[in-house]
């Protein structure tokens, strides 16, 4: 089965509201990254976490440091430009540090007025 389970698959938000995306991992992970893909297909890195939390503006991400089996991405005060597809990706905590990432299926986020 999939190592990375991302939810929800789609999300519709009013401008100004808050929400959270989540990724569960079927095995312990070394690190997790969050990306946003825009309508032109460009993938932009939002966060890289080996543990703990990181915040950047209205976005905040957390990676469960104890069991290393889930991560969340919080969006505060959603804006129209936040629309896009969000992916989490994680590197398994096994062997050498190869940088090989397993991606979730993505969350299609639409922010509307």
């Amino acid at each position: 089965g999939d190592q990375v389970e991302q939810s929800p698959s789609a999300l519709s938000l009013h401008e100004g509201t808050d929400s959270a995306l989540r990724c569960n991992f079927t095995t312990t992970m070394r690190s997790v990254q969050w990306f946003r893909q825009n309508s032109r297909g460009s993938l932009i890195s939002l966060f890289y976490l080996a543990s703990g939390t990181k915040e950047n503006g209205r976005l905040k991400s957390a990676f469960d440091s104890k069991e290393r089996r889930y991560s969340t991405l919080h969006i505060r005060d959603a804006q129209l430009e936040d629309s896009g597809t969000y992916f989490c990706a994680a590197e398994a905590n096994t062997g050498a540090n190869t940088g090989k990432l397993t991606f979730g299926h993505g969350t299609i986020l639409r922010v509307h007025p």
Partner: protein
Amino acid sequence: ETAVFQTPNYHVTQVGNEVSFNCKQTLGHDTMYWYKQDSKKLLKIMFSYNNKQLIVNETVPRRFSPQSSDKAHLNLRIKSVEPEDSAVYLCASSFTSQNTLYFGAGTRLSVL
């Protein structure tokens, strides 16, 4: 600011032809990757190279072959394309120790 450059942006070809995609990064990274994004938007790693050495080679058909001349370049050749090769091919790079990935804009391949 784009720092991972892919060419071409689009390529349309027929079954059986050979295609080559180029990727160059100007970030000074030591690791480069090729990912395939299918029609359902799922991204899967194909290959990764660290300082011109192949370190990840997922189960991809033999007609796919990566080529690295130096740590800033990683090209992808597909001999005799098949219809299921239609996808977006994304190149990325990172510092091995940190692993934050920087992606190129992708090459969309359509096989007729």
